[in-house]
Protein backbone atom coordinates (compact mmCIF):
# COMPACT_ATOMS: atom_id res chain seq x y z
CA UNK A 1 0.00 0.00 0.00
CA UNK A 2 3.00 2.32 0.32
CA UNK A 3 4.47 1.48 -3.06
CA UNK A 4 3.45 4.77 -4.70
CA UNK A 5 5.28 6.72 -1.99
CA UNK A 6 8.36 4.56 -2.52
CA UNK A 7 8.14 5.20 -6.28
CA UNK A 8 8.25 8.96 -5.66
CA UNK A 9 11.42 8.50 -3.61
CA UNK A 10 12.99 6.39 -6.36
CA UNK A 11 12.12 9.03 -8.97
CA UNK A 12 13.64 11.77 -6.83
CA UNK A 13 16.89 9.81 -6.37
CA UNK A 14 17.11 8.81 -10.05
CA UNK A 15 16.59 12.43 -11.18
CA UNK A 16 19.36 13.50 -8.83
CA UNK A 17 21.72 10.78 -10.08
CA UNK A 18 20.89 11.61 -13.72
CA UNK A 19 21.68 15.27 -13.12
CA UNK A 20 24.98 14.37 -11.45
CA UNK A 21 26.00 12.24 -14.41
CA UNK A 22 24.71 14.65 -17.06
CA UNK A 23 22.17 12.15 -18.35
CA UNK A 24 18.92 13.25 -20.07
CA UNK A 25 17.27 9.86 -20.68
CA UNK A 26 16.95 6.78 -18.50
CA UNK A 27 15.70 3.51 -20.02
CA UNK A 28 15.85 1.28 -16.94
CA UNK A 29 16.16 1.42 -13.16
CA UNK A 30 17.40 -1.68 -11.32
CA UNK A 31 16.19 -2.20 -7.75
CA UNK A 32 17.30 -4.60 -5.03
CA UNK A 33 14.19 -5.44 -3.02
CA UNK A 34 14.43 -7.62 0.08
CA UNK A 35 12.01 -10.51 0.36
CA UNK A 36 10.67 -9.24 3.71
CA UNK A 37 10.88 -5.51 2.98
CA UNK A 38 7.03 -5.31 2.85
CA UNK A 39 7.21 -4.08 -0.76
CA UNK A 40 4.97 -5.90 -3.24
CA UNK A 41 7.00 -5.98 -6.49
CA UNK A 42 3.92 -6.05 -8.78
CA UNK A 43 2.49 -2.95 -7.09
CA UNK A 44 5.83 -1.23 -7.32
CA UNK A 45 6.09 -1.79 -11.08
CA UNK A 46 2.44 -0.71 -11.59
CA UNK A 47 3.02 2.51 -9.65
CA UNK A 48 6.27 3.01 -11.54
CA UNK A 49 4.51 2.82 -14.92
CA UNK A 50 1.98 5.45 -13.85
CA UNK A 51 4.43 7.87 -12.23
CA UNK A 52 7.52 7.41 -14.44
CA UNK A 53 5.60 8.14 -17.66
CA UNK A 54 4.82 11.60 -16.33
CA UNK A 55 8.55 12.43 -16.31
CA UNK A 56 10.39 13.25 -19.56
CA UNK A 57 13.58 11.66 -18.18
CA UNK A 58 11.85 8.37 -17.37
CA UNK A 59 9.13 8.04 -20.00
CA UNK A 60 8.85 4.39 -21.13
CA UNK A 61 11.59 3.29 -18.72
CA UNK A 62 11.46 -0.11 -17.10
CA UNK A 63 11.73 -0.81 -13.37
CA UNK A 64 13.67 -4.06 -12.95
CA UNK A 65 13.47 -5.80 -9.60
CA UNK A 66 15.99 -8.21 -8.10
CA UNK A 67 14.54 -9.99 -5.10
CA UNK A 68 17.06 -10.45 -2.27
CA UNK A 69 16.17 -13.62 -0.33
CA UNK A 70 15.76 -13.05 3.40
CA UNK A 71 18.28 -14.73 5.70
CA UNK A 72 18.15 -14.81 9.49
CA UNK A 73 21.15 -15.34 11.78
CA UNK A 74 20.85 -17.31 15.01
CA UNK A 75 22.91 -15.90 17.87
CA UNK A 76 22.59 -19.13 19.85
CA UNK A 77 23.99 -21.71 17.42
CA UNK A 78 25.70 -19.21 15.08
CA UNK A 79 23.96 -20.46 11.96
CA UNK A 80 21.96 -18.92 9.13
CA UNK A 81 18.56 -19.99 7.84
CA UNK A 82 15.78 -18.94 5.43
CA UNK A 83 13.61 -16.35 7.17
CA UNK A 84 10.39 -16.85 5.21
CA UNK A 85 10.40 -20.61 5.71
CA UNK A 86 11.17 -20.69 9.44
CA UNK A 87 10.24 -17.26 10.83
CA UNK A 88 11.82 -16.01 14.00
CA UNK A 89 12.63 -19.37 15.59
CA UNK A 90 15.88 -21.08 14.61
CA UNK A 91 15.05 -24.45 12.95
CA UNK A 92 18.29 -25.99 14.30
CA UNK A 93 18.27 -25.11 17.99
CA UNK A 94 14.84 -23.54 18.55
CA UNK A 95 16.26 -20.27 19.88
CA UNK A 96 14.42 -16.98 19.31
CA UNK A 97 17.61 -14.96 19.76
CA UNK A 98 17.76 -14.37 16.02
CA UNK A 99 18.05 -11.34 13.78
CA UNK A 100 17.59 -10.53 10.13
CA UNK A 101 20.86 -10.65 8.20
CA UNK A 102 19.45 -9.50 4.84
CA UNK A 103 16.12 -9.27 3.09
CA UNK A 104 14.97 -5.80 4.19
CA UNK A 105 16.61 -3.86 1.34
CA UNK A 106 14.86 -1.18 -0.71
CA UNK A 107 17.82 -0.04 -2.78
CA UNK A 108 18.43 1.52 -6.15
CA UNK A 109 21.18 -0.64 -7.56
CA UNK A 110 21.82 1.09 -10.88
CA UNK A 111 20.29 3.08 -13.70
CA UNK A 112 20.50 2.22 -17.38
CA UNK A 113 21.07 4.91 -19.96
CA UNK A 114 20.91 4.55 -23.78
CA UNK A 115 24.44 5.30 -25.03
CA UNK A 116 23.33 8.08 -27.39
CA UNK A 117 22.13 10.11 -24.39
Amino acid at each position, binding site marked *: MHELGIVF*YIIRDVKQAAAEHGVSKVS*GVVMDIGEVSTIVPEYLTDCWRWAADKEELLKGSELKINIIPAVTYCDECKSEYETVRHGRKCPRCGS*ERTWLLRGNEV*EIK*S*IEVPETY
Partner: protein
Amino acid sequence: MDNIKVIEIKKSVFEDNEIDAENLRKELKAKGVYLLNLMSSPGAGKTTTLIRTINLIKDKLRVAVMEADIDSDVDAVKIKEATGIQSIQLHTGGMCHLDAEMTRQGIDNLDLAGVDLVILENVGNLVCPAEFDTGAARNAMILSVPEGDDKPLKYPLMFSVCDLVVINKIDVQPYFDFDIEKCKSYIKMRNPNAEVIPICAKTGQGVEALAEWLIRQVKLWKNQ
Protein backbone atom coordinates in the same frame (compact mmCIF):
# COMPACT_ATOMS: atom_id res chain seq x y z
CA MET B 1 19.07 -0.52 -30.97
CA ASP B 2 21.04 1.66 -28.61
CA ASN B 3 23.67 0.16 -26.39
CA ILE B 4 22.98 0.61 -22.73
CA LYS B 5 25.34 2.24 -20.28
CA VAL B 6 24.91 1.23 -16.64
CA ILE B 7 25.47 3.73 -13.83
CA GLU B 8 25.88 2.12 -10.40
CA ILE B 9 23.94 3.89 -7.64
CA LYS B 10 23.66 1.46 -4.70
CA LYS B 11 21.58 3.71 -2.51
CA SER B 12 18.79 2.95 -0.04
CA VAL B 13 15.53 4.65 -0.94
CA PHE B 14 15.17 5.68 2.72
CA GLU B 15 18.60 7.32 2.97
CA ASP B 16 17.54 10.91 2.14
CA ASN B 17 14.62 10.71 4.52
CA GLU B 18 16.89 9.50 7.31
CA ILE B 19 19.19 12.48 6.78
CA ASP B 20 16.20 14.90 6.76
CA ALA B 21 14.87 13.27 9.93
CA GLU B 22 18.21 13.53 11.75
CA ASN B 23 18.47 17.23 10.84
CA LEU B 24 14.94 17.94 12.02
CA ARG B 25 15.59 16.08 15.29
CA LYS B 26 18.69 18.21 15.95
CA GLU B 27 16.86 21.47 15.17
CA LEU B 28 13.95 20.60 17.45
CA LYS B 29 16.38 19.63 20.21
CA ALA B 30 18.07 23.04 19.88
CA LYS B 31 14.65 24.72 20.15
CA GLY B 32 13.67 22.58 23.15
CA VAL B 33 10.62 21.16 21.37
CA TYR B 34 9.92 17.45 22.00
CA LEU B 35 8.23 15.81 19.03
CA LEU B 36 6.24 12.61 19.64
CA ASN B 37 5.21 10.54 16.62
CA LEU B 38 1.96 8.74 17.48
CA MET B 39 0.88 5.87 15.27
CA SER B 40 -1.90 3.25 15.19
CA SER B 41 -4.43 1.52 12.94
CA PRO B 42 -7.44 3.58 11.83
CA GLY B 43 -9.98 3.64 14.65
CA ALA B 44 -7.65 2.61 17.50
CA GLY B 45 -8.55 5.81 19.35
CA LYS B 46 -5.66 8.20 18.72
CA THR B 47 -7.72 11.37 18.76
CA THR B 48 -9.81 10.42 21.82
CA THR B 49 -6.67 9.37 23.70
CA LEU B 50 -4.97 12.65 22.80
CA ILE B 51 -7.90 14.74 24.02
CA ARG B 52 -7.98 12.94 27.39
CA THR B 53 -4.23 13.10 27.83
CA ILE B 54 -3.77 16.70 26.73
CA ASN B 55 -6.45 17.87 29.15
CA LEU B 56 -4.43 16.25 31.95
CA ILE B 57 -1.06 17.76 31.00
CA LYS B 58 -1.85 21.12 29.43
CA ASP B 59 -1.30 23.00 32.70
CA LYS B 60 2.17 21.50 33.04
CA LEU B 61 3.34 21.43 29.44
CA ARG B 62 2.62 23.68 26.48
CA VAL B 63 1.34 21.24 23.84
CA ALA B 64 0.57 21.54 20.13
CA VAL B 65 -0.84 18.86 17.83
CA MET B 66 -0.36 18.10 14.13
CA GLU B 67 -3.03 15.82 12.69
CA ALA B 68 -2.04 13.96 9.55
CA ASP B 69 -4.69 12.44 7.35
CA ILE B 70 -5.17 11.69 3.72
CA ASP B 71 -8.11 14.12 3.68
CA SER B 72 -10.47 16.19 5.90
CA ASP B 73 -9.78 18.26 9.03
CA VAL B 74 -12.24 16.65 11.46
CA ASP B 75 -9.48 15.54 13.85
CA ALA B 76 -7.72 18.90 14.08
CA VAL B 77 -11.03 20.66 14.74
CA LYS B 78 -12.03 18.07 17.34
CA ILE B 79 -8.74 18.47 19.24
CA LYS B 80 -8.94 22.24 19.19
CA GLU B 81 -12.55 22.29 20.43
CA ALA B 82 -11.99 19.72 23.17
CA THR B 83 -8.68 21.01 24.54
CA GLY B 84 -8.25 24.61 23.38
CA ILE B 85 -4.64 23.98 22.32
CA GLN B 86 -2.98 24.80 19.01
CA SER B 87 -3.88 22.13 16.50
CA ILE B 88 -3.26 21.99 12.75
CA GLN B 89 -4.20 19.55 10.01
CA LEU B 90 -1.69 18.12 7.54
CA HIS B 91 -2.85 16.48 4.34
CA THR B 92 -0.65 13.77 2.91
CA GLY B 93 -2.18 14.03 -0.55
CA GLY B 94 -3.04 10.35 -0.79
CA MET B 95 0.16 9.11 0.84
CA CYS B 96 -0.17 6.50 3.57
CA HIS B 97 2.45 7.99 5.89
CA LEU B 98 4.35 11.14 6.76
CA ASP B 99 8.04 11.54 6.05
CA ALA B 100 10.51 13.97 7.62
CA GLU B 101 10.03 16.61 4.94
CA MET B 102 6.23 16.64 5.37
CA THR B 103 6.70 16.77 9.14
CA ARG B 104 9.00 19.77 8.76
CA GLN B 105 6.39 21.59 6.66
CA GLY B 106 3.90 20.99 9.46
CA ILE B 107 6.35 22.21 12.13
CA ASP B 108 6.97 25.37 10.07
CA ASN B 109 3.24 26.11 10.23
CA LEU B 110 3.11 25.95 14.02
CA ASP B 111 3.76 28.80 16.40
CA LEU B 112 6.49 27.16 18.49
CA ALA B 113 6.89 30.02 20.98
CA GLY B 114 6.91 28.42 24.44
CA VAL B 115 5.84 25.02 23.11
CA ASP B 116 7.38 22.03 24.98
CA LEU B 117 5.68 19.14 23.24
CA VAL B 118 4.38 18.63 19.70
CA ILE B 119 2.38 15.48 19.10
CA LEU B 120 2.20 14.26 15.54
CA GLU B 121 -0.82 12.07 14.92
CA ASN B 122 0.39 10.01 11.98
CA VAL B 123 -1.87 8.46 9.33
CA GLY B 124 -3.80 5.43 10.68
CA ASN B 125 -1.76 2.52 9.34
CA LEU B 126 0.51 -0.11 10.94
CA VAL B 127 2.83 -0.64 7.99
CA CYS B 128 4.13 2.44 6.21
CA PRO B 129 4.52 4.99 9.04
CA ALA B 130 6.92 2.57 10.76
CA GLU B 131 9.29 2.71 7.81
CA PHE B 132 9.66 6.47 7.63
CA ASP B 133 11.53 8.31 10.34
CA THR B 134 9.67 11.59 10.93
CA GLY B 135 12.42 13.23 12.97
CA ALA B 136 10.52 12.68 16.22
CA ALA B 137 12.32 12.34 19.57
CA ARG B 138 10.23 9.24 20.35
CA ASN B 139 7.69 6.97 18.66
CA ALA B 140 4.55 5.71 20.36
CA MET B 141 1.68 3.60 19.13
CA ILE B 142 -1.81 2.73 20.23
CA LEU B 143 -3.10 -0.82 19.87
CA SER B 144 -6.78 -1.28 20.66
CA VAL B 145 -8.26 -4.44 22.17
CA PRO B 146 -10.58 -5.31 19.21
CA GLU B 147 -7.54 -5.49 16.92
CA GLY B 148 -6.23 -8.55 18.77
CA ASP B 149 -3.24 -9.37 20.97
CA ASP B 150 -1.31 -10.92 18.08
CA LYS B 151 -0.63 -7.64 16.23
CA PRO B 152 3.00 -7.42 17.44
CA LEU B 153 3.61 -10.70 15.63
CA LYS B 154 1.93 -9.53 12.43
CA TYR B 155 3.41 -6.02 12.25
CA PRO B 156 6.86 -6.54 13.77
CA LEU B 157 8.46 -3.36 12.42
CA MET B 158 5.85 -1.06 13.97
CA PHE B 159 6.40 -2.57 17.42
CA SER B 160 10.16 -2.60 17.12
CA VAL B 161 10.35 1.16 16.41
CA CYS B 162 8.03 2.24 19.25
CA ASP B 163 9.26 3.30 22.70
CA LEU B 164 5.73 3.15 24.08
CA VAL B 165 2.74 0.93 23.30
CA VAL B 166 -0.60 2.11 24.66
CA ILE B 167 -3.24 -0.62 24.80
CA ASN B 168 -6.58 1.16 24.41
CA LYS B 169 -10.23 0.11 24.90
CA ILE B 170 -9.45 -2.23 27.81
CA ASP B 171 -13.08 -1.77 28.94
CA VAL B 172 -14.22 -4.15 26.18
CA GLN B 173 -11.58 -6.78 26.93
CA PRO B 174 -14.16 -9.30 28.31
CA TYR B 175 -15.84 -9.41 24.89
CA PHE B 176 -12.66 -10.15 22.96
CA ASP B 177 -10.03 -12.84 23.22
CA PHE B 178 -7.39 -10.33 24.19
CA ASP B 179 -4.74 -11.44 26.65
CA ILE B 180 -2.78 -8.41 27.92
CA GLU B 181 0.07 -10.49 29.35
CA LYS B 182 0.43 -12.41 26.10
CA CYS B 183 0.37 -9.15 24.16
CA LYS B 184 3.06 -7.69 26.42
CA SER B 185 5.29 -10.72 25.83
CA TYR B 186 4.86 -10.37 22.05
CA ILE B 187 5.77 -6.68 22.28
CA LYS B 188 8.89 -7.52 24.36
CA MET B 189 9.94 -10.03 21.69
CA ARG B 190 10.01 -7.21 19.16
CA ASN B 191 11.37 -4.56 21.47
CA PRO B 192 12.60 -5.45 24.98
CA ASN B 193 12.73 -1.74 25.97
CA ALA B 194 9.18 -0.77 24.99
CA GLU B 195 6.93 0.42 27.80
CA VAL B 196 3.30 -0.72 27.81
CA ILE B 197 0.42 1.31 29.29
CA PRO B 198 -3.14 -0.13 29.23
CA ILE B 199 -5.88 2.53 29.12
CA CYS B 200 -9.48 3.20 28.26
CA ALA B 201 -9.63 6.60 26.55
CA LYS B 202 -13.43 6.64 26.74
CA THR B 203 -13.65 6.35 30.54
CA GLY B 204 -10.24 7.80 31.35
CA GLN B 205 -8.96 4.65 33.05
CA GLY B 206 -5.13 4.51 32.96
CA VAL B 207 -4.79 7.82 31.14
CA GLU B 208 -3.01 9.36 34.15
CA ALA B 209 -0.15 6.88 33.70
CA LEU B 210 0.12 7.96 30.08
CA ALA B 211 0.13 11.65 31.07
CA GLU B 212 2.89 10.95 33.61
CA TRP B 213 4.92 9.06 31.02
CA LEU B 214 4.76 12.08 28.69
CA ILE B 215 5.70 14.61 31.36
CA ARG B 216 8.60 12.40 32.49
CA GLN B 217 9.81 11.88 28.92
CA VAL B 218 9.85 15.57 28.08
CA LYS B 219 11.66 16.40 31.33
CA LEU B 220 14.31 13.68 30.82
CA TRP B 221 14.86 14.70 27.22
CA LYS B 222 15.21 18.39 28.07
CA ASN B 223 17.90 17.56 30.65
CA GLN B 224 19.84 15.29 28.32
